[in-house]
């Protein structure tokens, strides 16, 4: 009777149900987190330090290879980093030292001048391309311009080696050829990466400052005299 009554009225008997206090209620209400497995993929806290450093070094090396064989790839643009440009700028500025043995102000560019020209030049060119309506982001453009200094740094090293054997006309001709080739390579590599992000009727307006930038750096390399 009571059961039939109960069945006809669902939850009817629950209104006067009470749990006595001496019945322990226990259980585990923690929800198993499905995201802990996703976390393991992104958490790099537990990996060895060598792995962390090698990952960045591999990325930098990968970008150097992309500059050596410039094809229109987006990986250089997507994962920008500024380690490569910093390394190249410091190397170039150090190699350009020792140009004025008597260190009067008639000499070549000082370390700070090279640094300022490279970094402020890159920043101004990036601002210029963004103001003209480019779709590239600020740091991506800095990254591309900095990495494309690599041929000119290599040319600087070659010039220093050539200058060890004397500074006559032959060595000047060799240096001129090397610097011209690397200047052309730098400009070609950077426009291969940057050209896609510009509106088509303003491409020349964006390429010209890049040309001027690498021309000035090439001039500094060519006029280096120990």
């Amino acid at each position, binding site marked *: 009777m009571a059961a039939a009554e109960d069945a006809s009225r669902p939850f009817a008997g629950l209104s006067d149900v009470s749990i006595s206090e001496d019945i322990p209620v226990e259980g585990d209400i923690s929800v198993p987190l499905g995201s802990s497995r996703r976390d393991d993929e992104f958490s790099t806290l537990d990996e060895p330090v060598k792995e962390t450093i090698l990952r960045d070094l591999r990325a930098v090396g990968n970008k150097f290879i992309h500059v050596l064989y410039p094809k229109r790839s987006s990986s250089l643009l997507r994962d920008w980093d500024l380690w490569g440009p910093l390394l190249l700028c410091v190397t170039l500025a150090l190699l350009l030292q020792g*140009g*004025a043995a008597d260190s009067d*102000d*008639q*000499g*070549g*560019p000082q370390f700070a*001048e090279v640094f300022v020209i490279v970094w402020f030049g890159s920043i101004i060119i990036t601002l*210029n391309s*963004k*103001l*003209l*309506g480019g779709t590239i982001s600020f740091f991506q453009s800095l990254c591309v311009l900095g990495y494309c200094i690599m041929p000119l740094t290599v040319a600087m090293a070659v010039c220093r080696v050539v200058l060890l054997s004397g500074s006559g006309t032959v060595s000047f001709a060799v240096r001129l050829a090397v610097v011209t080739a690397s200047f052309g390579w730098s400009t070609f590599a950077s426009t291969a990466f940057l050209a896609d992000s510009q*509106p088509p*009727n*303003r*491409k*020349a*307006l964006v390429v*010209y*400052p890049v040309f*001027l930038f690498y*021309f*000035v750096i090439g*001039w*500094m390399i060519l*006029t*280096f*005299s120990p």
Partner: protein
Amino acid sequence: MASPNDLQFQEFEEAAELLSADPGASTLSMSASNTPNTAAGGEDVKLDLSEDEEGQEESSELLGGQKPTSGFWTFEYYQSFFNVDTVQVLDRVKGSVMPLPGRNFVKHHLRSNPDLYGPFWICVTLVFSVAISGNLSSFLSQMGDPAYHYRPQFHRVTIAAVVIFVYAWLVPIGLWGFLTWRQGTERQVGGYSFLETVCVYGYSLFIYIPTSVLWIIPFEWLRWTLILVAMVISGSVLVLTFWPVVRDDTKVMAVATVATIVVLHTLLAIGCKLYFFQTAIHVPSPVTTPPPAHITLATTAH
């Protein structure tokens, strides 16, 4: 003949009504050279459809000088100063190299779209071309001297940069302020905006870039000829631009203003030539050798 003009006029009215209803709406300008993605919203409604002068004057009168509506702290404000295409920049450069007496640079080439791309990059190029050409010319002039050791003279870049940027940016500020003060209340009759003044000065410096490269050739008469030609060309660009503005002033002030413009321009050209392209004036060794010979002769005679 009446119907095409009526159609044009109707379009402008409708657009103006829409613009007054919503000032912040982005507008498409109708001129062929502008791309639709101009960044400044509500910049101006330009009906640059025809080449005739009355159409241009009508639009510039109605617009009363273009002012971007974004604040100066936004990026779009500065993007509106770079709203030029390659062909426009090349056209303005051509206009600065070939000044014709009937053509006012501002009215004909800028057409109420002054840009900062031209002035800035022309100044930067001029700085480097003057410094590099000066270095090359001093190298070539002293090449035969055995005592000469080549120096890159990199400090000249800094000096050139200071001089040229001060000239190209401070002189227009002074000139614009002076002209605005003299205009007084008649603002819409011919006064140029600050950007247009900077633009004219920037583009007028373009002729000095090939001139400085040609100054490497070590003939003095050639250098003075080149500097005269360059000064005449760029000076006439400036004079032709500013004469219609100062013409309405008193005779003395008009002549004084134009004379000041020309004198400052001349000073820049001659100063650059004298500082960066110094010819070697001292003759090296033969002067110093005879006295020691005298002394040794005197000592051996004793």
